[in-house]
């Protein structure tokens, strides 16, 4: 237990600094983009935003940046942290337990801050007078409660973190060879998907599926569990080379 | 100084350093000998190796242990070392000199003469 605590402290050594910088930058982007709108009106479309033509959201575009954050977070967790930890006598098991714990902390922080920002924009949009995009497929900030949106984002980010976590591990183990394999697999999958005849009923099933909140949350959790488990399978037998 | 390229073990060299100190009078009877750790630090050797050298001298009755204080020079240590070195001189050094003299065809009489000359014709 002592060893695990040390690992967790180690993994979160830079947490405040890196998450602080991250949100500072993201917030700044949101503020800059919205202030352009405030000054010049909706025609001034500068900075990151999501829009369906008539409705716009600035904080909604954070989802993409958060996605990139997770990819980097997952890569560094292994590329730097695991390398250091293995050099300093940490067991793979402890490291992995700590990594999952740290992932959950980060997911919790990101999802709650992002939900808060989405809801703050409801006020700023009214003040600045632009039509706010509130429909994000999985949730709708005008009809869903703060808590529900937070839970949905938490599960979504957790699934995302589990996937990028696995990518981080595979990249640590196989380096650039992993990316070659990843690219090849992706091409094969996309090609076979493109070869399939477009079936409108299938799309309908998918949409229907996504609209069922409970099923969606369950799927997210299963994906997270699956990928985190898969990750341990690979890290268990990983050695530290150069 | 210690000579790592010597064919003598380091601990033997450690013992010889102390013996020499005693012979030269730098280290007197009942005085404290350098500790294992002092040796380790000054000569950068493993403390256990230094300890082995000191213990060897203790076994020979040149040093003795005072509990908790360290090693001290035993009474009569100098005498003992002199005797030991004399024996060594007579048994090894001198025969070696004589063997070399034989090879160089120097007679014993010549050697004796030369020694007298060196010592000022005593």
């Amino acid at each position, binding site marked *: 237990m002592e060893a695990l605590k040390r690992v967790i402290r180690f993994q979160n050594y830079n947490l405040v600094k890196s998450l602080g910088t991250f949100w500072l930058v993201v917030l700044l982007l949101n503020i800059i983009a919205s202030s352009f709108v405030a000054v010049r009106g909706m025609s001034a479309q500068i900075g990151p935003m999501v829009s369906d033509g008539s409705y716009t959201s600035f904080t909604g575009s954070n989802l993409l940046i958060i996605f990139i954050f997770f990819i980097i977070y997952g890569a560094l967790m292994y590329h730097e942290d695991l390398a250091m930890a293995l*050099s*300093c*006598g940490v067991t793979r098991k402890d490291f992995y337990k700590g990594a999952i714990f740290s992932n959950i902390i980060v997911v919790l922080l990101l999802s709650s801050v992002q939900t808060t920002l989405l809801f703050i924009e409801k006020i700023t949009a009214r003040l600045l007078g632009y039509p706010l995009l509130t429909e994000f497929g999985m949730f709708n900030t005008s009809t869903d409660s703060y808590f529900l949106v937070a839970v949905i984002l938490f599960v979504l980010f957790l699934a995302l973190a589990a996937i990028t976590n696995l990518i981080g591990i595979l990249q640590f183990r196989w380096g650039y060879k992993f990316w070659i394999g990843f690219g090849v697999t992706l091409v094969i999958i996309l090609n076979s998907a493109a070869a399939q005849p477009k079936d409108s009923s299938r799309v309908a099933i998918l949409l229907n599926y996504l609209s069922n909140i409970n099923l969606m949350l369950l799927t997210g959790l299963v994906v997270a569990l699956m990928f985190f488990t898969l990750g341990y399978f690979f890290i268990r037998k990983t050695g530290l080379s150069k | 100084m210690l000579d*790592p390229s010597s064919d003598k073990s380091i601990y033997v060299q450690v013992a010889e350093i102390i013996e020499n100190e005693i012979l030269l009078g730098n280290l007197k009877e009942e005085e404290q000998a350098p500790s294992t*750790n002092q040796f*380790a630090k000054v000569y950068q050797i493993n403390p256990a*190796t230094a300890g082995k050298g000191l213990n060897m001298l203790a076994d020979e009755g040149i040093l003795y242990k005072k509990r908790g204080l360290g090693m001290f020079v035993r009474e009569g240590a100098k005498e003992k070392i002199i005797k030991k070195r004399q024996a060594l001189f007579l048994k090894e050094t001198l025969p070696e000199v004589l063997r070399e003299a034989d090879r160089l065809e120097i007679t014993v009489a010549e050697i004796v003469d030369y020694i007298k000359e060196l010592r000022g014709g005593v």
Partner: protein
Amino acid sequence: MLSISNLNKSYGRTKVLTDINLDLTANKIYGLLGRNGAGKTTLLKLITSQLLRNSGEIRLDGEEVFENSRALERISLAKELPSSLKEKKAREIFALAGLLYKDWDEEYKDYLVREFNLNTKKKLSKLSTGNQTIVVLIMGLASRSGLTMFDEPTLGLDASVRYKFYNLLLEDYEKHPRTIIISTHLIDEVANLFEEVIILSDQQVALREDVNTLLEKSFYLSGREDLINPIIKEKRIIHRETFGATKIVGIYGYLTAEEKQYLKAQGVELSNIPLQKLFVYLTEGNKEGAI
């Protein structure tokens, strides 16, 4: 303290270590010697579980070390850091090491940084090779681990810094006795630090011996071949030279009083092999040289 049995390791088809068996006692300084590529680093990395072994056991006070934090938190290996950490500042590395090492001594780390005059604000990649080595040495010393291992600790260091390290090591060893393993292929300076040496050669432990008995067990015999041969027939010959009609043979192993007497009587010269020569011969394997 540390006991290794039937340890095997290979990289792909290349065998690196074959059936290593070792038992180390606590609070001694061990020298792990062997030529480049003899498997020294691999052995150390296996002890810290950074690498996976093919078979065998490594136990620390009876406990298998692999994936065992209770054992691993008592072991540290001071070794060149993985390249992915080279963009970190020295002080960050120390901070992280301080979080991970159970027995880390922060004050002692600060003392060492001053002693070595290290600029900790620089990134590792911006430090000279010697200073990068110093970072690693400080990590090893300040880890205060019960089993502290140094892999090639003098890489890129100039003489004065090397001696500083030897001094600091001995000083700390006196105050905080622990088991220390130093791997090196440069034996000249460090030989006297060791209490015991382990020599790796041809994937195996070629020798493991108390430094002080090493000398007493190794001899040069020099004289006519026909006189020497009957004695060395059963001995382990580690060196052979021919010098005119005289043969010089280095053997490893005790000589009985009778054997010594016989040799002396035959006019064969007998002398001990200096440590450094001995290491060279033993790490070279049974290569025979002639002048």
